[in-house]
C-alpha cells in the first residue's frame, strides 16, 4: 500500500476523483481529507507495479487539475449576433 498526500491548495478534489475512476481497474483507493491535503491510499489489485500505478495516478490528477483551472480561467465566448 502506498499513501500519497495531495495539497488541497495545489490539487483539485474533482481531478483526484476522476483519477480514482480511471485507475479503479488497476488498484483500490481509500480517500481521506484534512485541511491541508487529500490523502490517497493506493493498493494494487492487478499485475501492475504499485509504484507505477501511484506515479501514473499522480500525473493524471495533476493534468486534470491544470486543465480544470484553465477551463475556469477562460471565459466562455459570447455568441456573435451580427448586431452593429
Amino acid at each position, binding site marked *: 500500500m502506498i499513501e500519497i*498526500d495531495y495539497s488541497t491548495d495545489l490539487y483539485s478534489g474533482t481531478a483526484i476523483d476522476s483519477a480514482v475512476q480511471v485507475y479503479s481497474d488497476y488498484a483500490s483507493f481509500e480517500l481521506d481529507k484534512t485541511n*491541508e491535503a487529500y490523502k490517497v491510499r493506493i493498493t494494487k489489485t492487478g499485475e501492475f507495479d504499485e509504484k507505477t500505478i501511484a*506515479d501514473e495516478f499522480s500525473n493524471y490528477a495533476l*493534468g486534470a487539475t*491544470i486543465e480544470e483551472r484553465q477551463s475556469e480561467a477562460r471565459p466562455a465566448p459570447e455568441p456573435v449576433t*451580427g*448586431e*452593429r
Partner: protein
Amino acid sequence: MSDISTSHSGDALTLEFDEGLYPKDAVYGAAYIFIDRCYVHLDRPSPGRISVRLKLKEGVKRALDDLAGEFENEILGQAWRRQIIDENRELIEQVTTQALAGAAGPPGLDDLMSMDIDDDTAFEDPLGIAMSWEDKYKKKSKPSGESEEEEPEEPSPSGEPPTGEGKSSAAGSPR
C-alpha cells in the same frame, strides 16, 4: 534562501520555488509540459513555497540534472509569458473583439426579423423613399369655397375654347 533549491532523492529530483517569484500558474504550466517525460508531483513544503518532484519515466534517456535546468528555464518562460499577457490583456481583448465583429458580416434575414423595429426605433427616411406612392402623390383636400374657381373648364360641345364669361380670369386682368 535562494529562489530555487534542488535536491536529489533516489531516482527523483525535487525543486523548490518561491511563489512570489514564480506564481502557481507558471509552476502548473511548466509541470504540464514535463508530464509526458516525467512523473510530476507538486507539494507545498511551507507557506509561500511550492516543491516539484520530477521522476523520469521508463525509457526516457535524460540526466536528472539536465531536467532540472530545463524545468527552471521553462518555469521562467511561463512566468514571463503570463506577465506579458497580463500587461497586454486589454489590447488583446480589443483586437479579438474587432476581429470577431468583422467576421460576423452584415446581419442576416433571421437577425433582421428578430430586431425590434417600430415607429420609435425605425430608421430615418429624409428622402421619403419608404413612403408609399399613394401617400406621396395623393390629392390634398381643398378648403371649401375655392373648389369651383379652381376646377378646369370643360370644352364646349362645339369644340370652341371656353370664353371665360361670368368667371374671372386666373390672373384677374380685365379684357
